[in-house]
């Protein structure tokens, strides 16, 4: 695609990079306000218990302690949650998991708060916990909540399953396990809340969704949303884990009670134990194909352990069900996905949101089929890949930008080029193999429409301000928005100020999640900037006696043939101080039907094909990745450097779940530090990690761009598992592939 853009498609260094390398960027814990109190949280040590009483008297009298709070002191709503409000802000009667918040202390120093915590005596009546989601689904299982243990049930129904499996020449069926994963953002949760002179509150937080902070804090304090203002501070990573503003609500309660600023920062241990995780899935999948390798039927039961509270469980489960058939056309599908309550740590949004889980299961079964049919892995996938005419699991036909076959072709070439490395006599006791994995994902929320709103102000000197509510978590969205506005308004990128971090200024666009920002906000910013530009050109056209189409906006002037009139001049003549336009982008979608899962739920889909060459140590079971290729469908690159960064990051995060990451729960979370919850280090980067970006423009995307932030993670577990399974000759059905697990599989040969 020819790039005649000034700024779009350029690898501009991210706008906030300088402040970060200088150590000048300000994160929430860097804030200190006069009179600020430090907040600590009493958390349940039991997974399931009734609270008989809480004695806070000794804590209240401890030197330095200013406020102590329990659930009964909450002035407003006592339950919170991003979709369903079922999580207690502070538990009053019952605790649902180890780490559930029970009481708060606000003190003059952190040390005093910590010491006072130990003086709070909670009398628990310990109850038997339900920890296994499959057991929780059995009739007669103890109930975690009164409404039963099934939090949600999402379905996909299409075609005639019985007939299809009858016609199938080959049927493969297995149970798969995907681990519970911790986001492990480098910055733990922090919130600072202060009362305003007018009776409202201001929040400074590490967050992915400032407007939800506002909503929840205002609800909990019993105030209108208009009285709470939230500033998103520079945020040290989110990955889905900073959508639920629990720390914000807890800090707000102390700020409200004491009438003073209050800071709550989670220790890493506290974050590992109590913050929500990615759903572990148990998946039973059955796939049937005919002799030629055409997929006929897919049946799946997906069980996600949502822990004590639903959080985004409904949405994760719906996403997993609606993506169950991946990037293939499968005419007959029956999928049932459940979010099941247990007394484990709650699970919610995490990069991937159900798609990495189903991708692992489906792609593993695809490879099982290749074995049974005698087809090579690429050929089987080619024969079933979606294109612009075929419907996905929801029945949606994409119509454009479905480059998966082209990507499979490239993957095939890569796999061929890796043959010499495979055939090279490996060192003694090492097994090598190549694996492939593919995925697709709908951009934005699936259950309901996602929109974005942007406000663009063009100033007399040609500089501009963009206000939009999707926050930058480090993925570079502010820079993307600046590039879009700069392109549309004909100015340099550094003359565009992007404000996404202030609820009083930035319009609510929902959370920064679902890989949605480039597609939704990129479009909203483009539309708003174009509107502002159009308005200016129309005014100028009137003055110059020509048509607006003959004019261009460039560096703060309107240019007409050889003439130009500065914006300053134009504005002052018409008494404008700035021209401000608002635009909204809402893709034309239809949410999936609750009974069948059919609809047209996303404006665009992103595709990914990954290839891995692995080496397995036959003795120890250790897995090393020698070569990795991530083929990524982005529609059009707005900033190649930023695209690369996202793909590297997503791939390595996926590698973590593939090889080493698992939050273990025995009553409560047992990995309580980064010494026991292991994430990839520099040592784990493959010898060679390559990215190949495919640009098949999405017509409804800004400059043809679509999202891919989660897409780079979705197929990683599947790809590595397929390679390892090939290498060891045994199907891997459980992630992560720790050396002990692989050793165990090897010994089964």
């Amino acid at each position, binding site marked *: 695609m020819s790039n005649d853009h000034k700024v779009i498609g350029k*690898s501009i*260094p*991210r706008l*906030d*990079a*300088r*402040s*970060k*390398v*200088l*150590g*000048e*960027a*300000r*994160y929430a*814990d*860097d804030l*200190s306000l006069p009179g600020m109190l430090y907040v600590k949280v009493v958390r349940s040590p039991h997974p399931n218990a009734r609270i008989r009483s809480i004695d806070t008297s000794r804590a209240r009298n401890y030197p330095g302690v200013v406020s102590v709070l329990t659930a009964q002191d909450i002035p407003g709503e006592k339950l919170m949650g991003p979709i369903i409000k079922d999580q207690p802000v502070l538990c009053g009667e019952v605790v649902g998991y180890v780490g559930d918040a029970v009481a708060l202390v606000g003190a003059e120093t952190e040390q005093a708060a910590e010491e006072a915590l130990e003086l709070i005596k909670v009398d628990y009546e310990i109850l038997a916990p339900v920890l296994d989601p499959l057991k929780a689904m059995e009739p007669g299982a103890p109930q975690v909540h009164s409404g039963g243990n099934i939090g949600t049930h999402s379905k996909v129904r299409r075609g005639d399953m019985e007939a299809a499996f009858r016609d199938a020449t080959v049927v493969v069926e297995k149970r798969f396990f995907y681990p519970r994963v911790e*986001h*492990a*953002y*480098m*910055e*733990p949760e922090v919130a600072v809340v202060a009362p305003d002179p007018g009776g409202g509150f201001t929040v400074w937080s590490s967050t992915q969704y400032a407007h939800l902070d506002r909503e929840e804090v205002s609800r909990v304090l019993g105030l209108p949303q208009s009285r709470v203002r939230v500033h998103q501070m*520079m*945020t*040290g*990573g989110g*990955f889905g884990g900073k959508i639920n503003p629990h720390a914000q609500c807890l800090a707000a309660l102390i700020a409200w009670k004491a009438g003073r600023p209050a800071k709550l920062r989670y*220790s*890493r241990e506290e974050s590992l134990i109590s913050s929500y995780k990615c759903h572990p899935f148990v998946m039973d999948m059955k796939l049937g194909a005919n002799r030629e390798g055409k997929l006929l039927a897919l049946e799946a039961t997906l069980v996600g352990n949502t822990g004590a509270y639903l959080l985004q469980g409904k949405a994760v489960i719906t996403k997993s069900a609606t993506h169950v058939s991946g990037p293939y056309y499968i005419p007959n599908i029956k999928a049932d996905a459940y979010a099941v309550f247990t007394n484990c740590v709650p699970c919610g949004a995490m990069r991937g949101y159900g798609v990495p889980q189903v991708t692992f299961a489906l792609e593993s079964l695809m490879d099982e089929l290749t074995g049974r049919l005698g087809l090579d892995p690429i050929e089987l996938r080619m024969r079933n890949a979606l294109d612009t005419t075929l419907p996905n699991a929801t029945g949606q036909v994409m119509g454009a930008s479905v480059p998966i076959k082209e990507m499979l072709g490239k993957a095939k070439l890569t796999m061929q080029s890796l043959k010499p490395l495979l055939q090279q006599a490996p060192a003694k006791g090492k097994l090598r193999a190549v694996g492939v994995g593919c995925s697709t994902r709908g951009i934005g929320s699936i259950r309901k429409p996602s929109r974005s709103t942007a406000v663009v102000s063009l100033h007399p000197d040609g500089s501009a301000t963009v206000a939009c509510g999707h926050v930058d*978590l*480090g*993925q*570079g969205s502010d820079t993307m928005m600046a590039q879009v506005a700069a392109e549309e308004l004909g100015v340099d990128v550094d003359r565009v100020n992007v404000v996404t971090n202030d609820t009083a200024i930035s319009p609510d666009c929902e959370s920064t999640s679902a890989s949605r920002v480039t597609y939704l906000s990129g479009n909203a910013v483009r539309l708003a900037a174009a509107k502002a530009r159009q308005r200016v050109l129309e005014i100028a056209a009137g003055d110059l006696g020509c048509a607006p189409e003959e004019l261009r906006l460039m560096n703060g002037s309107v240019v007409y043939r050889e003439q130009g009139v500065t914006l300053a001049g134009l504005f002052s003549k018409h008494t404008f101080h700035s021209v401000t336009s608002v635009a909204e982008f809402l893709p034309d979608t239809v949410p999936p039907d609750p009974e069948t899962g059919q609809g047209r739920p996303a404006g665009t889909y992103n595709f990914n094909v990954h290839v891995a060459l692995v080496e397995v140590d036959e003795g120890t079971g250790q897995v090393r990745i020698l070569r990795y290729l991530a083929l990524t469908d982005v529609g059009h690159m707005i900033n190649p*450097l*930023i695209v*690369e*960064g996202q*793909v*590297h*990051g*997503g*791939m*390595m*995060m996926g590698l973590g779940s593939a090889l080493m990451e698992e939050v273990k729960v025995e009553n409560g979370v047992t990995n309580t*530090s*980064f*010494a026991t919850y292991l*994430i*990839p*280090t*520099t*040592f784990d*980067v493959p010898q060679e*990690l390559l990215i190949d970006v495919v640009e098949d423009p999405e017509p409804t995307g800004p400059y043809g761009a679509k999202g891919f932030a989660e897409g780079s993670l979705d197929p990683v577990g599947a790809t590595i598992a397929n390679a390892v399974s090939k290498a060891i000759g045994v199907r891997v059905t459980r992630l992560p592939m720790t050396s002990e697990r692989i050793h165990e599989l090897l010994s089964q040969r």
Partner: protein
Amino acid sequence: MNITHNIRVIINGQTREISVAPNETLQDLLRYRLGLVGTKSGCETGDCGACTVIVDGKAVNSCLVLAVESNESSVTTIEGISSNGELHPLQQAFIDHGAVQCGFCTPGMILAAKSLLDEDPNANEKDIRLALAGNLCRCTGYVSILKAVAAAGKTLRGGK
């Protein structure tokens, strides 16, 4: 019993005389008392490297150093490696190579890399991986960081 210790420490070239509590860590001193918030707190147990500073030429986790232990020492934080707004080659390389995303690991990562390159100007890719293994990053996948450090090393060697 509120014991304090008087220490003399040179921070980013400036000598300071400070009274510290016995259980105050160097990280606490830098961040919460001296306002040098560039040094980040990621885990407080020496597992993530976000709090890395350079003490007497060696990269250490400031969360595991007591403030009293830095008496008579020279400490360099992220605020101390640029001069008059001119970036250290590592800082520039991180920007140029897209090695900064959320930025939280960045100060610690840069200081760890600086201490490596100061000790070993000819550090190769293997040396860099080993030296930075104690600095966790969740955003970048490390690839651009490794490239940035290698590029900065080359710049510091005069382009070779």
